């Protein structure tokens, strides 16, 4: 198999983000090359990864507050209304003896977003401080962050399904509230943050702890 594209005097191998082909890219941090196989741009590291990830993490953290303070839906039965937040929705399940489901929902909607934000902040700080502490474990943390984020969407889907099913006016109806918008924002922004972070930065410092 050929690993082509020679680009100037000093080039370094980089993995094409889309197809995994080994492409040689100039050592200059802003340089990129085109992958001969899939034609996408290949950078050695994701562009401006640390700043962009910080921006997304901070945005998500700010959205997290209204996402939990505002109700995500209002249930009206026989003229009486009751609003639920993300947390009270999980507690409702617990009160009805569905503790395995309550545990899953609580983990997915409360624990996962927080853990994701804290982990990404930790990874960012460790990279900025050029830490060489357990790069393998930090990479593993990153992989987990990447995988679990999607499960936070469960609350958004519950609101969607309930809103679709229950609209019988004053008898029984459910309305999506502002909290759902913010919560959806948290999930989307943290997913982008995980995608923007470049785990190879963890290893850049692990390899040469002193001379960078």
């Amino acid at each position: 198999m050929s690993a082509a594209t020679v680009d100037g005097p000093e080039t370094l191998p980089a993995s094409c983000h889309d197809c995994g082909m080994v492409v040689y890219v100039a050592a200059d941090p802003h340089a990129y090359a085109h992958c001969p196989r899939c034609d996408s741009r290949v950078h050695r590291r994701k562009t401006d990864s640390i700043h962009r990830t910080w921006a997304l993490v901070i945005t998500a953290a700010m959205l997290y507050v209204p996402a939990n303070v505002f109700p995500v839906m209002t249930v009206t039965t026989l003229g009486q209304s009751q609003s639920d937040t993300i947390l009270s929705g999980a507690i409702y399940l617990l009160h009805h003896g569905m503790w395995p489901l309550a545990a899953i929902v609580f983990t997915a909607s409360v624990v996962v977003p927080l853990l994701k934000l804290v982990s990404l902040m930790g990874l960012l700080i460790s990279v900025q401080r050029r830490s060489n502490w357990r790069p393998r474990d930090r990479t593993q943390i990153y992989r987990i962050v990447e995988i679990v984020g999607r499960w936070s969407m469960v609350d958004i889907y519950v609101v969607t399904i309930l809103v679709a099913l229950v609209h019988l006016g004053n008898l029984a109806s459910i309305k999506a509230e502002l909290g759902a918008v913010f919560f959806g924002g948290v999930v989307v922004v943290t997913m982008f943050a995980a995608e923007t972070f470049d785990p190879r930065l963890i290893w850049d410092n692990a390899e040469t702890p002193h001379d960078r």
Partner: protein
Amino acid sequence: MSDATLILCHDCDQMNRIGEVPLGGSARCSRCGGLLFRRIRNSIDRTLAFTLAGMVLFLVANLLPFLAFKMQGQVTDTTLATGVRSLYEQGRPLVATLVLITTIVAPFVQLVSLILILTPMKLGFAFPGQVALFRTLHKVETWSMMEVFMLGILVSLVKLLGMAEIVPGIALWSFVLLIPVLAAANASLDHHLVWDRLGRNS
């Protein structure tokens, strides 16, 4: 594939020299332990079979009645897309769009692009857009969240338990089957092999 392949780890940038990997085996990064690729027996046939089955289930899940809600003689019928429309009507276009993309658009794009890449490959021809299509598939995968939606259905049913009678429709059963079928399609797809074949054609 040649005897030794050079693969750069996606997660740590380690250059790995990988020899022959037997079918059913996988190659891992020597430094961080990350998965480099897996070799899957009959990958293209199996993925194509699961994807075609998935497409049928997906269409049934979207076109037929999903859930019905019965309360004091009044019945509300819904399809999978009803929730998206209701959210939009209630003035939540952003949430509606997010749900539309993650439960309908992304899975559909995923299924269609797999069919359009693997069918020609199986029949021994190629067309120019396939590379772009496979790239799109990689980008879309993250946003296809049907298994999470399944959990959402479960939680919703529990919440409505005391309130009303819920009647499951054909689409719901289709959807329940679709989750493992999609998972099987993803698990049998050998990305490395597909890229290798696409690369040889261009």
